[in-house]
């Protein structure tokens, strides 16, 4: 099936999200839509999926104009979509989720034909090597497996065009590789795949055609053979350096010393962090690599005091910080960029000005004797917004309305307002576009060069390589080894699967 979008235009008030965008997707190909966050990719796909009414342009299937009034129409026409945020019912099984919305019934009692759904799941799962159990409950599945359920859902409705919206944003490197091979299999079986992403490596790995969108317009098409730099500059609209300029580290004394740190989950009694010991010196970046869910989150939270520690000590600049409140840890000079910025980093309903003082509000000069000084807060906000190049309508705009990259800049700006001894940043560039990644990386290196000890937790190896002075690899709550930054990808990959340094090398 050939899908064509012709001159699609979509406006929200004065804002033009899609400006006469035309693309053609042929069956048996992977068409990548490349663009920064906010470029209008998802809007375009929502128009295609019947979720938005376009203000202009038309959609053609096999050269026949069609009109969709809702997702139901689009699905009936053979278009399937896997959203960035999955649309699954968590307490239901895989088979139940797959049949949801087109439940077949059997027998005179009109019972749900679960058996047929199971068979369908098994068949598709087998065909593409998904390894998904139709009777598994969705909430027990890993994120990667949930995504495969979404794909099965689309395929079970005979989707000939499959739209994947930022499919790798939530995946680990391994899961990403698996997904990319699934995409290739789908293409080879004749499906037309539309891949919406801002990640260049993925585009280069699987795309047959690349359309680059910037500020709601198609700015060009590219061949998958184009270099990452070429794609990035097309996407951002200026030259982008893909490697961070980073001088050699000049590490000083050990700033953070962690000894035998152990975290046990209260509810399940599972040991999440198992006697972890390491140190970080001032002026050095220690990157913590590992597949997500191997204790990195708990490590960061245990150092700050968000989760209680079962055993072990954390010393910052010679002083023990374990057992203290979060507030005391922050006061001791820890800066913290949480893994999930929308949950832990910002208050979406607060203005930028207020989010920029979220953990500074009761310190001088922002407040005196319990009273906040609005003029100082505003001055600070103005300064930080300029310094960190936060793209926003103003300091009074709600932070929740900013793009992910700009929200992250707000968090980072706030954390770097204080004098730090230690900066902990978890997944600092997750979901960020190329321009913002470059910016965030530069700031982190600047902090390092000021003598701050930095811990960067990242499941993206590219990021680990870009920043690390040393790399610690975590597996099952332990550090399996700390290696120099020139260790090759294969060795790191094996270590992330639990192999020790010597075995891996």
């Amino acid at each position: 099936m050939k899908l064509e979008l012709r001159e699609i235009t979509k406006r929200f008030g004065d804002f033009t999200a899609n400006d006469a965008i035309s693309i053609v997707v042929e069956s048996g190909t992977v068409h990548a839509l490349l663009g920064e966050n906010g470029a209008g990719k998802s809007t375009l796909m929502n128009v295609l999926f019947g979720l938005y009414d376009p203000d202009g342009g038309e959609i053609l299937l096999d050269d026949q104009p069609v009109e969709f009034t809702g997702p139901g129409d689009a699905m009936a026409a053979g278009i399937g979509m896997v959203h960035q945020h999955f649309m699954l019912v968590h307490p239901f099984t895989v088979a139940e989720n797959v049949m949801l919305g087109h439940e077949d019934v059997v027998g005179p009692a009109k019972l749900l034909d679960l058996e047929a759904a199971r068979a369908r799941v098994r068949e598709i799962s087998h065909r593409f090597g998904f390894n998904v159990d139709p009777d598994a409950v969705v909430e027990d599945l890993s994120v990667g497996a949930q995504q495969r359920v979404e794909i099965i859902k689309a395929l079970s409705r005979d989707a000939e065009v499959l739209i994947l919206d930022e499919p790798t944003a939530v995946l680990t490197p391994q899961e990403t590789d698996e997904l990319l091979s699934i995409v290739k299999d789908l293409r080879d079986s004749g499906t037309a795949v539309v891949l919406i992403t801002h990640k260049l490596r993925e585009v280069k790995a699987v795309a047959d055609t690349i359309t680059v969108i910037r500020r709601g317009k198609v700015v060009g098409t590219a061949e998958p053979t184009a270099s990452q730099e070429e794609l990035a500059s097309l996407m951002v609209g200026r030259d982008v350096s893909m490697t961070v300029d980073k001088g050699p580290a000049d590490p000083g004394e050990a700033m953070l010393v962690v000894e035998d740190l152990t975290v046990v989950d209260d509810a399940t009694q599972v040991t999440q962090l198992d006697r972890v010991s390491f140190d970080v010196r001032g002026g050095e970046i220690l990157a913590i690599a590992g597949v997500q869910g191997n204790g990195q989150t708990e490590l960061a939270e245990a150092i700050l005091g968000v989760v209680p520690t079962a055993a072990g000590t954390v010393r910052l600049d010679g002083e023990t910080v374990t057992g203290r409140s979060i507030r005391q840890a922050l006061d001791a000079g820890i800066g913290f960029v949480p893994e999930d910025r929308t949950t832990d980093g910002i208050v979406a309903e607060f203005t930028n000005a207020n989010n920029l003082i979220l953990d500074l509000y009761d310190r001088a000069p922002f407040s005196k004797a319990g009273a906040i000084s609005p003029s100082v807060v505003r001055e600070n906000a103005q300064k930080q917004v300029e310094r960190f190049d936060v793209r926003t309508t103003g300091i009074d705009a709600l932070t929740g309305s900013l793009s992910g990259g700009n929200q992250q800049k707000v968090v980072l700006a706030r954390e770097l307002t204080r004098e730090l001894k230690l900066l902990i940043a978890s997944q600092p560039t997750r979901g960020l576009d190329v321009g913002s990644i470059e910016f965030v990386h530069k700031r982190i290196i600047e902090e390092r060069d000021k003598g701050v000890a930095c811990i960067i937790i990242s499941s993206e190896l590219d990021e680990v390589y870009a920043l690390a002075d040393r790399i610690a690899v975590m597996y099952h709550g332990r550090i399996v080894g700390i290696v120099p930054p020139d260790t090759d990808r294969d060795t790191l990959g094996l270590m992330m699967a639990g192999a020790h340094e010597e075995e891996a090398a």
Partner: protein
Amino acid sequence: MSDQTTATEAPQQERPGRASTVLREILSSSTLVVVMAVVASLLIGGVLIVLVDEGVQEAAGYFFSRPGDTFTAIFDELGAAYSAMFTGAVLNLDADTFAQTIRPFTQTLTMATPLIFAGLGLGIGFRAGMFNIGAQGQLLIGATVGAYIGFTWDLPWGLHLLVAILGCLVGGAFWGFIPGILKARTGAHEVIVTIMLNYVALNLVAWLLTFDAFQREGSNNPISPIVAETAQYPKILGSQFNLHLGFLFALACAFGVWWLMERSTLGFELRAVGANANAARTAGMNVTRATVLVMVIAGALAGLAGSAQVLGTEKVLTTATAGSLGFDAITVALLGRSRPLGTVLAAILFGGLRASGPTLQVQAGLPVDIVFVIQALIVLFIAAPPLVRSMFRLPAPAIEKEVAA
């Protein structure tokens, strides 16, 4: 305009579906929506008035022969009803003296006083993410303590009032502290606990009123002695008006709450905890402390609402002291979008509705219940901002332009 309607229908990003989202939506709806909710309620109230009116029914019986009569009857009835409301709640233009002319409005302000206090407290709770349904009980316990001090103790003028007010405040604060500490320590949901504590408070007062220490001498009814004059709020416009000092105190509290929420570090903390407790905790705030404090402050303000009753208008403690104030205050707080100024205005509106009840009955021959119907309609409309927006074709709130790409 057509863009905006399609934008309204645009699917929202998946979010944790919770009751708090509803509350948040109500609190973030625009002033215009709130005002139109009130207008819609008055209009629909008008329709009901017309429907039940005998004169209109009679005229409608021969609608097709003389339709003009029906419309005349409708306009007469509506005119009578709305003018009775105006006369009862704002100004009595037929009065002979100036005092009588402005009397209805002072009555409105008097009625509004306890609603301002309690509404302010509930508003703080709503903004801090707490569904405090317990103003009723907190008000009653505050009133009990204050009234007891008022009719038992013998203190000099000035000091007696101060101590009695303080008693109301402490009583209410204590009744708010209980659900606060239970939530903070055990996770007990404040909605359940506060609702139950309302019953506990009511029955506790009923029980106390059977004792000699509380029951009026020589009376078998559950009613307390009259609060000593030294412990009553002084009348601020002279003895011919009921308006008492409690109203000015309530306005002062409104300013205090504004300062607390908008200017103080504590208010910043409370708002942050209410909007995103995780982020507040990660930023080093003490969520447990904030939870307890919110309930204590809300309880204290509800207790002050009790003072407006026992030290202001009623001067005695009965089981009916709280009336439906604690629940009306929820509507007032929501109508005022939990902001102090909004709460004061909403309380005055509600005070006016209540004050106009008797006049409606006497002058327009309407049942007092129509006032409660209008109040209920207001609740309905402010709970459904999209309904009001579509009724009056108001634009939808600005959607996030940065649609996740």
